[in-house]
Structures are given as structure tokens and as C-alpha cells.
């Protein structure tokens, strides 16, 4: 496989997949090592930019996906055939914020923080696939624990949970990396 062909294959793979494709997967399929795949992807990303294309390569949720460039949004909104998402409500966003930073967490714990019942936001978030049941908490009633999904990362354009905005003195997620707290 030539260099150019390899890039074409990667483009086709990322284009055709409904989920972000990981370097590892591309490496297995093309039988090229991961380092080579990364170089190819880097070049591909460059080409999308240099050539002033309408689409670009994006690293999201641990993989790569093709998306339109942000400056195209104004045109895309004019075409009905382009599916659009309804933004989340304030209530759903607050519930999601708590889950994202404090996962795994039970419904009762979320309700204590928000001061309201959260049944309907939980239903919305579960339906949208932004959260999922991750298990059960020890103790009376063994309540369901909730956590965020890969779809959550995709939805907010995040590569991993580490990219969640930092809130001062609300360092709840232990996964937040040292590089950001180092200063």
C-alpha cells in the first residue's frame, strides 16, 4: 500500500464509521504501525485545512471523526436535511454537570445537590445516551449509580473526561490530570 493509498483508506474508514475510529483500529486494519497511522492522520488533517475544505478531521472521544468546519454552520442550518440537536435544558445541564464531575453518583445524591427531583432530566439524559447506569451502590436499597458515556464526550466535543472545564476547588473527578493542576 502506498503512502497516498494508506491515507485514502484512513479517510474512507473514518468517513464510513458512525463512531470515532481509534488509531489502534486503523493500525489493525491497514496493517501499519500506530506511529505511521498517526503521521498519516496528521497529514490528512493538514490537507483538510490547507485545501480550504468544508470538512475537517477531529479528535474526539478517544478517536477520530470527520466533521464540517465550524464556519459552515451558518449554511448547514439552512438545509432541512441536516439533522440538528435541540440544546439541553438548564435542568438537564445541571444534572449532567453533577454526574460528569461526581460520577458514579446516585439519583438521591444528585437531588440533594440540586434541591429538586431529577427524574425527568435523568430520563432525558439516558434517552440521549449521554449517561448510563454504571452499577449499584452498596447500602440500603442498592441504588443505581450513574456515569457519563462516550456519547457524552462526543456531544461536547471532548476527547476524554480530562478535558472537562476545571472548576476552582471543585476537583471532583480524580482523573483530572496533573498537567492541568501543576501550576
Amino acid at each position, binding site marked *: 500500500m502506498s503512502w497516498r493509498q494508506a491515507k485514502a483508506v484512513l479517510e474512507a474508514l473514518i*468517513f*464510513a*464509521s*458512525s*463512531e*470515532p*475510529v*481509534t488509531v*489502534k*483500529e486503523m493500525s489493525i486494519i491497514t496493517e501499519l504501525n500506530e*506511529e505511521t497511522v*498517526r*503521521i498519516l492522520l*496528521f497529514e490528512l*488533517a493538514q490537507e483538510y485545512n490547507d485545501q480550504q475544505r468544508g470538512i475537517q478531521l*477531529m*479528535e*474526539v*472521544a*478517544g*478517536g477520530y*471523526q*470527520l*466533521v*464540517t468546519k*465550524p*464556519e459552515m*454552520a451558518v449554511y*448547514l442550518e439552512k438545509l432541512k436535511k*441536516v439533522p*440538528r*440537536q435541540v*440544546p*439541553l435544558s*438548564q*435542568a438537564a*445541564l*445541571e444534572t*449532567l*454537570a*453533577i454526574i460528569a464531575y461526581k460520577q458514579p453518583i446516585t439519583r438521591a445524591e444528585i437531588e440533594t*445537590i*440540586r*434541591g*429538586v*427531583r431529577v427524574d425527568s432530566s435523568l430520563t432525558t439524559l439516558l434517552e440521549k445516551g449521554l449517561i448510563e447506569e454504571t452499577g449499584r451502590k452498596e447500602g440500603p436499597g442498592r441504588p443505581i449509580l450513574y456515569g457519563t458515556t462516550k456519547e457524552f464526550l462526543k*456531544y*461536547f*466535543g471532548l*476527547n*476524554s473526561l*480530562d*478535558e472537562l*472545564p476545571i*472548576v476552582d476547588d471543585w476537583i471532583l473527578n480524580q482523573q483530572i*490530570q*496533573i*498537567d492541568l493542576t*501543576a*501550576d
Partner: protein
Amino acid sequence: MVKTETLKGEKGAYQVTLEVFSGPLDLLLHLIERAEIDIYNIPIVEITDQFLAYLQTMEFLDLQVAADFLLMAATLMQIKARMLLPRPVLETEEEAVEEEDPRVELVERLLEYKKVKEVAARLQDKEREASKFFPRAGGSFPDLEVAAAAEPAGRVTLWDLVQAFSALLESLLPRLELKGMPEEQYSIQDKMDEILDRLARTPQVFFSALFAELTSKKAMITSFLALLELIRMRKVLVRQEMTFGEIVIARWEGKT
């Protein structure tokens, strides 16, 4: 919940815009912020009255008042009652310390909730940014759903960056010294803008390329500090595309 309720008055339809709150804590926080009062010293009588007045307004407008709001009203009235009770004469200092302000728990909840609101607002920003990027929607290939691994992206620690920078400085310093160019006068802010401008043109820049054209050590350090600041502000991402490869600076994805 809706932002605007259309109400039918006697003289025809008119609109009333209501502040809609996502919960009683949201309303309470709003009242406190509007009154510009110290959250640690809430004038409970005043705030309780305002809270109840809001509930009355809701009822008056025939809007359903959720049970959570009523519960909060009860809590507020309870605190109010406790604060209005004549304080027992305290015999010792110890007792005085033990006498806890009935507002403490509420204040703690409000502070915690405030953070939730802050995070929710930031998530909303991210949502707005991400909504500008449209994925492919058409004719998805059947069965082609691929489960992607949460592969650790080539993240770079601050320490890696500092090391790379000192290595770079070491290699470039002789050249800089020879040139003897007049020193540039740049602030960190200038350099931050410069880096962002550059990333606006090309989404990714090699770490070394950021410093290649600089003519003094001071300029390089200023640039480096600017880069660190941008990382802290999460305006740029730093990653290593290959295991032993160059460090790459990229625009924070989703941000225009």
C-alpha cells in the same frame, strides 16, 4: 419549563416573561444575587418573604409550583423561626460556640449549587461550540458501528513541555547570542494573541516552530509563559502525535 407564559388578560393576550428557575436553590441564589447580599450572612426574613412572594406569584399566574419549592419554603420558614426565637442565655463560651447558625447548612448547599450552575454554564458553552461541528448524517453504513477505545491521546504533561523547552533553548541559544538583535518588547498577552492568531490559520503548530523565529531568550521565555497560560486557560491543546515525535500545539477543538 418554559421561559415565557402567554396569559390571556381581559384586554386580550399579552405576554409575561418569567424568570424560570431550575429549582428552589436556583431561585434562592437569584434572590441573593439580585439583592447583592453576602451569601454567608443571608437576611433570612427578607429572603424568605421574597421566596414566598415568588411562589404566590406563580400560584397567582396559575403556574404549578413544584413540591420542591414548597419544601424549600418550609425550610426557610423553619430557619426564620429559629433565628427569631429569643436566644437562650449562654453560660459559657463553649456553649456559644456550639450554638450553630441555622443558616449554615443552607449556605453550604447554596455554595455547592453555585458550582453546579457554573459547570452547567461551561458545559453549555461547550455544547454551543460543539454544535457548530456537524458529523456525517447520511446513509450510514449498516452494521458498521465500530466501538472505539478510550485510547489515551498522546497527552503531554507540563513537565514534558518544560523539558522540551529547555532543550530547545539550549540548542537555539548560541544562534540567538550571535545575532545580537535588538530585544523585542512583548508582553505575555501579546504572545498569547500571537499564538492564537497562528492557530487560527493552521490548527496545529509544532512546539519548536513557535519559537523558531524568536531572536532573544527573553522573547522565547515570554512565548513559553504565554503558551503555558493558554494551556491553563484551555485555549490550546498540547499533544505528542508520535511516541518520540515533536510536541504539537493545537487549537482547543470546538473553539473557533
